[in-house]
């Protein structure tokens, strides 16, 4: 390792001589670098003070990374320097882009930062650069047993590698643990607790490089998701369903030898210090219906806490994960629609976090699929970093044509990519009615099938005796039902006549009572006319022979009832015209009333009998 660093050094020294004069307008008057190695992700924050020593205007600053680092670079941002106070969240960042210049050393990768203002002669400007590297920490030794601690190696340069001359610079390396196996000692090296300090170094020429190697203990879990597929499904009925499929591997030192569950249970912090015991996912607030399962089924070792700022889900894999071990699981949760879906200028958009909710996980391939409701049009994506993008279709509940899916892919994702992104689309609110309409038509189809089945004559032999008998019986039934209907209407008219009598006793309006009687007479006449052909049919039909006496009895009773009612009516009206007293009237109609009540009872009994046919 050291040999390789030395070779690179010699090579770069040669480059220094060749290319040094090319970019000498700018000078870095002060560089402070802080390397944070407390997790599996290496974060290098550099504070650069740039000074224009030349005469022309300069608006771009080049950042150089050796090839060994550039391939692990996951995230690079330049932000304004906020001093020691470090108020995060100003949200401003300067554009950074990859540049390929011909007159640059080919073994270096350059990024160019566009400054907010051009620097004139003698002007200076200070800004921060955050570079995040994944897989930059190598386990050494590469294989350990259950009882061993995990040691990691990190390589960088003590001198800031830059195409510009650097006047003053310092470097500090922050480690997770005070235990350091070894580190490169050069001039001005100090070790305070878990921090190693290099520098200050003064007046170094461009492309100076002094390799350092830090070998230290770290039992941080190396949770690496080889693939994470997040599916965000929007339902305009009030929910955003997020489903995340993880393929997780412990990316630290490989486990060798046997695994003893007994040892692990007895002393988990010694026998299995570097194992992944639990993962904590920070979900948005008001997340509901949270679940955690793998291919076998529900994994019940999980905990959930929630407050108004976040929902915390702690999950434990089925087994403690040692180096190189894998697991695959799924977590899912629902989010309230109105907190993530918005409308602006006739377009709807979802504004939701891109990355993985689990803390400090490196994701090799992150695929985010946004499933839009059926009928969405004009889909466009706005994301804070470049993504590979394609479209799919997904068939889910109650779909006809499939839902449009926007798939976004990012390789080498780190927690810094947990930024909001937006998917814009157009949607007509009426299209929401598709789902209930489909259900309604489905059920209506069943009813129509029932109606058709009851109406269609499905007998095979249309001339058999039993079939003909059935047809006749149907007709008899229909006739009896009609007669029954007519009688019901007659009884309703009787009730009206009675009601008119009650009105008469209350108001004394003889004319109105007479009019009601007249109307009732007309209606009853019509009804009896309607009844005649039906009775004639029953007479002619053989099937009705056994029912006929009952029906005829009913008809006669109803007729009798009608006559008596009319007699009662005439008597009462007559009495009113002659201005008899109430007692007198009651005496005159008493016998009729008795008979009417008895008849009514008999008619009701007969109707009940007919209903039971």
């Amino acid at each position, binding site marked *: 390792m050291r040999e390789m660093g030395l070779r690179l050094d010699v090579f770069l020294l040669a480059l220094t001589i060749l290319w040094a004069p090319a970019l000498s307008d700018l000078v870095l008057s002060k560089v402070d670098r802080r390397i944070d190695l407390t997790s599996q992700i290496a974060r290098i924050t550099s504070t650069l003070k740039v000074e224009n020593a030349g005469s022309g205007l300069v608006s771009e600053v080049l950042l150089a990374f050796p090839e060994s680092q550039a391939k692990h670079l996951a995230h690079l941002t330049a932000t304004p320097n906020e001093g020691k106070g470090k108020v995060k969240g100003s949200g401003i960042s300067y554009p950074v882009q990859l540049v390929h210049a011909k007159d640059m050393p080919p073994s270096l990768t350059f990024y160019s930062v566009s400054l907010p203002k051009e620097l004139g002669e003698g002007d200076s400007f200070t800004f921060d650069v955050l570079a995040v590297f994944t897989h930059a920490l190598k386990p050494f030794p590469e294989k350990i047993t259950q009882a061993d601690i995990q040691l990691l190696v990190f390589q960088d340069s003590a001198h800031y590698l830059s195409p510009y001359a650097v006047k003053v610079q310092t470097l500090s390396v922050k480690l997770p643990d005070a235990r350091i196996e070894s580190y490169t000692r050069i001039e001005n090296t100090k070790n305070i607790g878990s921090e190693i300090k290099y520098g200050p170094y003064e007046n170094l020429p461009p492309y100076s490089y002094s390799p350092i190697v830090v070998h230290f203990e770290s039992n941080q879990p190396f949770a690496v998701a080889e693939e994470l597929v997040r599916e965000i499904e929007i339902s305009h*009925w*009030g929910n955003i369903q997020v489903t995340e499929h993880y393929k997780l591997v412990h990316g630290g030192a490989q486990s060798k030898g046997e695994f003893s569950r007994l040892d692990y249970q007895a002393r988990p912090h010694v026998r299995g210090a570097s194992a992944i015991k639990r993962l904590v996912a920070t979900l948005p607030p008001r997340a509901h219906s949270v679940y955690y399962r793998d291919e076998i089924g529900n994994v019940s070792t999980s905990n959930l806490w929630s407050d108004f700022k976040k929902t915390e889900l702690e999950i434990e894999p089925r087994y403690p994960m040692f180096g190189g071990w894998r697991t695959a699981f799924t977590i899912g949760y*629902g989010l309230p*629609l109105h907190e993530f879906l918005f*409308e602006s200028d006739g377009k709807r958009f979802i504004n939701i976090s891109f990355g993985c909710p689990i803390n400090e996980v490196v994701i090799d391939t992150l695929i985010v699929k946004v499933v839009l409701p059926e009928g969405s049009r004009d889909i466009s994506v706005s994301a804070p970093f470049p993504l590979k993008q394609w479209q799919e279709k997904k068939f889910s509940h109650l779909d006809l044509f499939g839902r449009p899916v926007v798939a976004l892919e990012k390789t080498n994702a780190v927690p810094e990519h947990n930024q909001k992104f937006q998917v814009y689309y157009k949607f007509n609110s009426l299209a*929401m009615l598709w789902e*209930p309409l489909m259900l309604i038509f489905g059920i209506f189809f069943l009813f129509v099938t029932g109606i058709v089945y009851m*109406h269609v004559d499905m007998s095979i032999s249309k001339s058999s005796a039993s079939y003909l008998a059935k047809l006749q019986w149907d007709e008899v039934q*229909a006739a009896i039902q009609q007669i029954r209907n007519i009688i019901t209407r007659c009884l309703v008219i009787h009730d009206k006549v009675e009601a008119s009598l009650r009105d008469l006793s209350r108001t004394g309006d003889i004319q109105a009572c007479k009019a009601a009687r007249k109307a009732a007479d007309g209606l009853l006449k019509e009804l009896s006319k309607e009844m005649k052909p039906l009775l004639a049919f029953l007479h002619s039909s053989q099937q009705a022979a056994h029912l006929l006496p009952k029906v005829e009895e009913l008809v006669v009773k109803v007729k009798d009832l009608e006559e008596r009612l009319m007699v009662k009516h005439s008597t009462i009206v007559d009495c009113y015209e002659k201005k008899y007293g109430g007692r007198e009237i009651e005496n005159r109609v008493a016998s009729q009333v008795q008979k009417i009540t008895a008849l009514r009872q008999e008619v009701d009994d007969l109707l009940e009998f007919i209903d039971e046919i």
Partner: protein
Amino acid sequence: MAPKPIASPVAVTWYPTLAVVMLAIGLIFTASFFIYEATISRKSRSLAKELITGTVASVFLGFGSLFLLLASGVYV
């Protein structure tokens, strides 16, 4: 224009109540439909009445089952 949050047309908390009420009404109409089919003889049955009862029942059952799906967490 500032972005305006979009909420569901019916408050999510109403879904269980709506499901129960609409399914109950729908089932009552279904019951009356089948009672009508079974009791009234073929000759005197009215197609219009059958279709109207069937339509009303399917509208209530359709919305009722949609709200039942939503209330049970199957967001369609």
